[in-house]
């Protein structure tokens, strides 16, 4: 850990869903600028919940979450929406593109929503992601790998400080996975943003700067390779 101001910091964070057992307990972690962090864990270990909290999609029950110097605990719905819009970007396993918009519109969408569209930058991203020939296509006309590249492009085009990705290659075959991951890591490193990536793949986790592991809602030592 460095002393540089973290892009994302969680201190003793806990979350319990109504009527259920605690999903997260006493989680403390940091993501520094330019740092890529992998988060693994078994199903139900709380890794998606942690990502939702970090992405201001949900509020924690206890503890402190700070994103890019802003504490999330004091924010209402509108404030959290603003955080998502302006400082964070999310990449989902399901891609979550807007089906009625074509690739060009989807790519630019988050940046437009945040009010900082940069055509040259979007165009460069489209080029790097190999989407230039598909700009007029609609999501349903693309393969899964192509759709995920659009989703990554949409996130990066908004110049987020922090990129949060939830199993971004979960729906892709191995070749596509590799390509998508390469592109994403390349873009993140070039932009200086931080990345927190949830995955169940140890192979992917190993390619990132750091690897955290969740077990039953708590950070735990990364298991030995044999166990995955």
């Amino acid at each position, binding site marked *: 850990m460095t002393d540089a101001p973290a892009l994302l910091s969680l201190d003793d964070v806990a979350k319990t869903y109504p009527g259920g057992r605690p999903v997260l307990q006493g989680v403390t972690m940091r993501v520094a600028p330019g740092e890529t962090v992998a988060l693994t864990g078994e199903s139900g270990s709380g890794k998606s919940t942690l990502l939702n909290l970090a992405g201001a999609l949900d509020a924690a029950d206890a503890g402190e979450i700070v994103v890019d110097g802003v504490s999330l605990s004091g924010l209402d719905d509108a404030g959290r*929406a603003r955080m998502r*819009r302006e400082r964070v970007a999310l990449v989902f396993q399901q891609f*979550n593109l807007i089906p009625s918009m074509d690739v060009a519109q989807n790519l630019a*969408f988050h940046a437009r*929503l945040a009010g900082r569209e940069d055509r040259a930058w979007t165009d460069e991203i489209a080029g790097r992601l190999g989407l230039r020939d598909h700009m007029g296509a609609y999501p349903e006309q693309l393969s899964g790998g192509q759709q995920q590249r659009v989703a990554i492009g949409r996130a990066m085009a908004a110049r987020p400080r922090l990129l949060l990705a939830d199993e971004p290659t979960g729906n892709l075959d191995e070749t596509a996975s590799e390509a998508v991951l390469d592109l994403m890591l390349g873009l993140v490193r070039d932009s200086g943003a931080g990345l927190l990536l949830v995955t169940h793949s140890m192979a992917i986790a190993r390619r990132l700067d750091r690897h955290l592991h969740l077990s039953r809602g708590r950070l735990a030592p990364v298991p030995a390779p044999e166990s995955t």
Partner: protein
Amino acid sequence: MRRAILAALWSHWRRHPVQLLTLLVGLALATGLWSAVQAINAEARASYARAEAQMGGAGLAELHAPSGVIPLATYVALRRAGWQVSPVLEGPLRHGGRVFTVMGVDLLTHPPLPAIAESGADIAPVEALGAPGRLFARPGDAAALAGRDGLPPVVATEAVPPGLILTDIGAAEAVLGRPGEVSRLLVLPEQPLGRAPLNEVAPDLVEVAPEGRADTARLTDSFHLNLTAFGFLSFAVGLFIVHGTVGLALEQRRGMIRTLRALGAPLGTITRLVAAELLALALIGGLAGLALGFLLAGLLLPDVSATLRGLYGAPVEGGLSLRPGWVASGLAMAVAGTLAASAASLGRLARMPLLAGAGSRAWSLRPRGWRMMAGAGLVLIGGGVGAIALFDGLVAGFVFLGGLLMGGALLLPPALALVLRLAAGRARGLVAQWVWADMRAQLPGISLALMALLLALAANIGVGTMVSSFRLTFVGWLDQRLVSEVYVTARDDAQGVAVAAWLETRADAVLPIRSAEIRYAGAPLFVYGIVDHPTYSENWPLLDALPGVWDRVVAGDGILINEQLARREGITPGEEIVLAPDWRMEVVGVYSDYGNPTGQAITALDVLLRHVDGVPNQRFGVRVPPDRATALAQDLRAAFDLPPRAVVQQAGVKAQSLAIFDKTFVVTGALNVLTLGVAGFAILTSLLTLWTQRLPQIAPVWALGLTRARLARLELLRSVALAAMTAVLALPLGLVLAWALLAVINVEAFGWRLPMHLFPLDWLRLFALAIIAALIAAALPARRLGRLPPAQMLGVFANER
């Protein structure tokens, strides 16, 4: 930010233009039908009001002569006895294939006539009052009359109702060729002290109170009531479409909206923008609907005005004018309707959690809600029945009607679910079982459309049954009441005696038509005296009677009263009524008397003559073999120099009455077809809505070996079966609706009940129409299914998680 969100929302419509069109068409149809009916009603009412205001004399009592003609000398005698009356001479003027009504008034003594004051013409008094005088007519009518010789100059003015020529009575005498004649006398509001009684001055005249006359407003109200009911039903049917489309659009955008929120679009902003989007669509659809309604009203209005003018003598112009109030109310209905129809969807959107579990909930009525729906339906019906049981009046009648219709609609899906469950239980064979089960699965999504179909069908059956019953009753009543082959009106009593004597040897029977107006329970009552003749006992329609009714009537031992009097005063046969201090009679029967707002009674002629002095003896019904009627009528006119109007043949009267009446059906029929069309459209909308959800349900069956063609056929069959079941269920609802219209609404509104006649052939036709509508609606989705590339079927499995 707003722009980006709006672009995303709008992109949905751009990708689904059919959905957008459906929504707009639904809104336009609802608004269009509603506003067309409103426009027709408003135009017709404005026409009467204009006519009444411009012609003055509204609400005044009148003096009438039983012979139809008042001599000028009688007018002067009345004036010189203090009676403040103003003469009117009316008659037809045929010109260029049209019949104009010439209305001559004494311009000096008539109540103020805005029709002339507003004519804007620069007419000197001597020109209007002196010879040859001036005629006032609408510009179109004035142009039509312009070339005719022997007419006074015609002044064109918008202030005169169509088809009417207004003029001074002096000019009217000359134009009509009726010097020294007056048709009726208006009794002016201010009468002096010491005025001589009417029976001393002009005993042959009768004073007719304004409410005793055929009151245009009252009669036409029944017509407007029908139209308004139709307008509401159409609007309700249209709103079902809107509700369906809005719900679908929001459901389909559920995923997009979640994505928008994940990307940082605030929920409040999204909700507000969706509401604004709906408002804009409502305005667009509403405007299109207004245009449609205006067009529709313009097409229907000539028929409506013909109906009103012919049936009720109410002047309505064929033209339509755009009224700001009408535009505002049409748009308000469109917006309110859209918001009402989408309130639930918007509410769901506003409460939608950001992190719901995967899988979108289909827009539909959930089976779990069926018991609740059935409960709500029964409560609504119960409330309606309660309203009519506890309260009297038209409002209670409409509450009953509304409760019945909405309750019936709510009962439909649970009833269908029950039928389908029973059918599925009995089905043999795998495919049959699947079809029934699949229909049940489909039911929630298509319920709203079927409810719309149910309402449209029920409204059709109800209104159709009412109108047809009305017609059948009316025809029967005409047959019964217009029994005599020839009707003759003599100039005076002396000529009446001569006519009767002349006919004695030439006709099978001469039936005097003699009546007197007395007052009973504070209202006018017309008592008719009849002679003993089988014509009455064989033909007169009795609703209720004691045994030996006609023998008792002709023996002077009983009196018949019309339904209006019986209902108003709560009189039943067997009761005694007191017509005058020394005149008590037992009521022995009640007869139907459609369209007549006043009380009427029938007793033996000698009884009437014993109690009332000076009963005119000028009108007769003449029984004669029908083939001799024309010759006899001609002989009568020649022998007594009677004007054509004084000798009338029954056949002509009947034909004319029916021709006029049938005009009403043109309008009703057109509206029937339109509502059904709207309901068919609702089915199409629902099936298209279900389309995306259908694939996952159909793909496994296809995979199990059913061909696409067979699936498409089953798809059609399913739609037809659902429509057929709905139609079957609509029949009882429609009949109850008809009963309510005939026996509740009509009685509350007009004081008489219509007997209900059933027309099973009409139901069959309607059933066929419903099936056809369902077929057409299902054809498009079925065709799509039949041509669906197998890859897309496979894709279902690939996308399935």
